[in-house]
């Protein structure tokens, strides 16, 4: 137990160090981009003068030396204050909390869809390797792997929204309908289907290919032959012996993906006007809204680090050998 506590403490210290390093790096990187929020606002307003630029820079604290700005920022972050958005004049933490649920809903739906469909398809393909079902699955997986996300999204919209008129083509809910209870859930669900599928298809393809390859490799190993010789039923061999051992690379990849998904998908959020955090970060980048961008980066990097921790724990659960190592 003491060793475990020691490990956990070490791990948490590491996380704090990593997060601070990320905050400093991001701060410097962002300030290296040409232009600042004042010049962006002037550019968008169609008119500017020296007084406006000075007013804005003073308001945003950009008239201070960079080192001072960094010190002020870090000081605030350590107190749990992510600052105010330059453009919107609202607290960054609030902006992020407003947008994070939408991203989490979208990405976890897409994630669940990708994993379940991908592993199932991969397993099916590996059982019927070389036959027609395997060919179909392999070709489909390759197609989804290679097709750009936004194109898949637009085609799905054309088919399901424009021609069949089954689903809404953008947004997260019907505005002004004031649905409650079950009706609200159905409404969000209808809006969720297209973006979740669009986002999930690429990863589904990855999981299908990964599962298929991994299962074929495991299937040719000695312990599987032994199990078969013992007379273990084929279905049980597949589930307990092959699949379970084949899942390790899938989990590794899923861990990486889960981290990426927290950042949202700018592309899918753009195409479907999904009010998530990816779009928030992208708009903040274009507007040089430093505080918002830094806040999003910080928030997502913390989540990524946590997901890595979770992945490590999952390994232990699935494969007892990992604990020894």
């Amino acid at each position, binding site marked *: 137990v003491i060793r475990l506590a020691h490990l956990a403490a070490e791990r948490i210290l590491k996380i704090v160090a990593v997060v601070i390093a990320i905050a400093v790096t991001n701060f410097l990187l962002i300030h290296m981009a040409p*232009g600042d929020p004042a010049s962006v606002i002037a550019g968008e307003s169609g008119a500017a003068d020296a007084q406006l630029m000075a007013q804005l820079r003073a308001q945003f604290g950009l008239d201070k030396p960079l080192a001072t700005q960094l010190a002020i920022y870090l000081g605030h972050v350590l107190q749990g204050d992510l600052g105010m958005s330059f453009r919107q004049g609202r607290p960054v933490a609030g902006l992020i909390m407003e947008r994070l649920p939408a991203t989490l809903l979208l990405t976890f739906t897409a994630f669940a869809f990708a994993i379940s469909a991908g592993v199932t398809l991969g397993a099916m393909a590996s059982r019927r390797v070389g036959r027609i079902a395997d060919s179909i699955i392999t070709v489909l997986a390759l197609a989804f792997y290679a097709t750009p996300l936004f194109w898949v999204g637009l085609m799905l919209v054309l088919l399901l929204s424009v021609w069949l008129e089954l689903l809404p*083509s953008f947004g997260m809910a019907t505005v002004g309908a004031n649905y409650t209870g079950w009706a609200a859930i159905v409404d969000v669900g209808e809006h969720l289907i297209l973006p979740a599928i669009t986002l999930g298809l690429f990863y589904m393809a990855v999981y299908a290919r990964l599962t298929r390859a991994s299962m074929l490799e495991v299937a040719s190993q000695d312990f599987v032959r032994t199990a078969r010789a013992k007379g273990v039923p084929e279905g049980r061999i597949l589930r307990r012996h092959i699949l379970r051992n084949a899942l390790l690379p899938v989990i590794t990849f899923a861990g990486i993906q889960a981290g990426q998904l927290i950042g949202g998908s700018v592309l899918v959020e753009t195409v479907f006007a999904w009010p998530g955090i990816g779009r*928030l970060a992208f708009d903040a980048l274009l507007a040089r809204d430093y505080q918002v961008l830094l806040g999003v980066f910080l928030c997502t990097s913390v989540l990524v680090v946590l997901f890595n921790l979770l992945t490590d724990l999952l390994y232990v659960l699935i494969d007892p050998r990992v604990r020894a190592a």
Partner: protein
Amino acid sequence: MEKLTRRGLIAGAAVTGLVPASPFAQTSSKRGGTLTTILTPEPPILVLGVNNQGPTALAAGKLFQGLLEYSFKLEPMPLLAKSWSLSDDKRTYTFNLQENVKFHDGHPMTADDVIFSITKFHTELSPRARPIFNKIKGATTPDPLTVVLTLDTPFDPFLLMFDTSTCAIVPKHIYAGTDYRTNPNNQKPIGTGPFQFVEWQRGNFIRMKGFDQYWVEGQPYLDELIYRIIPDSQSRALALQTGQVQLTQANDIEPFDIPRFRKMPNLEVELQGWEYASQLSWIELNHRVKPLDDVRVRQAIGHAIDRNFIVSKLWFSIGKAATGPIASTTRFYDPQVAKLQSHDPNKAKALLDAAGLKPNARGVRFTIRQLALPYGEVWTRLSEYFRTALGQVGIEVVLETTDAGAWAKRIGDWDYETSTNFLSQYGDPTLGVERSYVSSNIKKITFTNTGGYSNPRVDELFASAREAEDPAVRAKAFSDVQAILCEEVPQIWLMELAWPTIRDKKLHNVIRTAMGPNAGFGQVYFE
């Protein structure tokens, strides 16, 4: 020109017929409904003055109002000012305000709010209003519904400064004595407009509802107005096509999609409504870069490009070819002198030869770097066309790409060779044209005379047009300046831009004034 001005000034009250005076007879059939439309890109804040972007003007124009609106010919029309007059010495303006105007929090709007908005709020915040409202030497309120403004010197275009996007009337009781930029009201705007702010989910939608104490009896007709934030242009086109939104405006729909929507029987495409802005696009030349300082080279570039091609093939005939520095919809445009170089590549080559710029072995006379404007697909295509057209006369163009933040910064720092730009003219050359050509405005700030063109005669003419109180004198000066600029081509003017408003045919009264879809929408109704 003189007639137009005087009619606007003296007979302003007579135009009141344009504000529906007898709403009772019509309201029953017009009332009701929710209009869902699009806003792109998402504005940061919905209080005009604190933020003056295009999308802000579009949405905040429903929440706030100025003293005046303008007809398609830029004649002033009453809005919060019922009537107005100008003294004989042309220095004192008197505005009589509408009665029973209330802010959305129930406070009555009075002359104090108007004076606060003009002399404090916008003078402090807005770079465009500041130099002009600083001319106001006296501001008094003889009674709560009368505002008297006295200028230091006569200023003919003064009445063009009172539309909602330039000078929205804001509540004094909320803003006085506070930091305007960080006032909490900026998050929940309170104005006098026909619609009242309800909710804004960032990245998603802005919702407004009809203001039940709006000063025009029976209006607004619509119950609710919803702006959806849809960042992708193809998704916006689909939203319109499927009827999920009933109106698009500004740059919601890319020009290449317009022909498709023109063919849809339930939709109407309108191009009017941008006369006040009258944006003119041009290839922005940095005169500090050789050989762009040579007038023959600039004329050659003018001959090398085909404006009609740009209008018809890139913008699908939305807008028209520029004929000079002043748009044809702006006051004092003179069609007699505004004539630009015709499309004639051979003339261009001859001029470049005369300037001593002979082609080398590769056929290249010189190379310039064009900083493409990062405002969407069609602007990128424009830069590509520019490269092709100049390539044909031996000028090699290298394209540079960037994002909006870096673009504004580099233009402001004079860190470019050529770029693309477009500027609003605000109805009068003194307000929106002068700034790009006079040497006193050569500054390291975006939208000043960043190109660095300088001609003492041009400075003189713009100054006399600014100061003259007689519109005829101003007209003469502007005609002369147009002739000089067309000859010296400080910038390569391309197009008078227009922006399509596409509406469901059942939706009426959207485009009534030169403010187009930026106007208040109190009169807008569903059939």
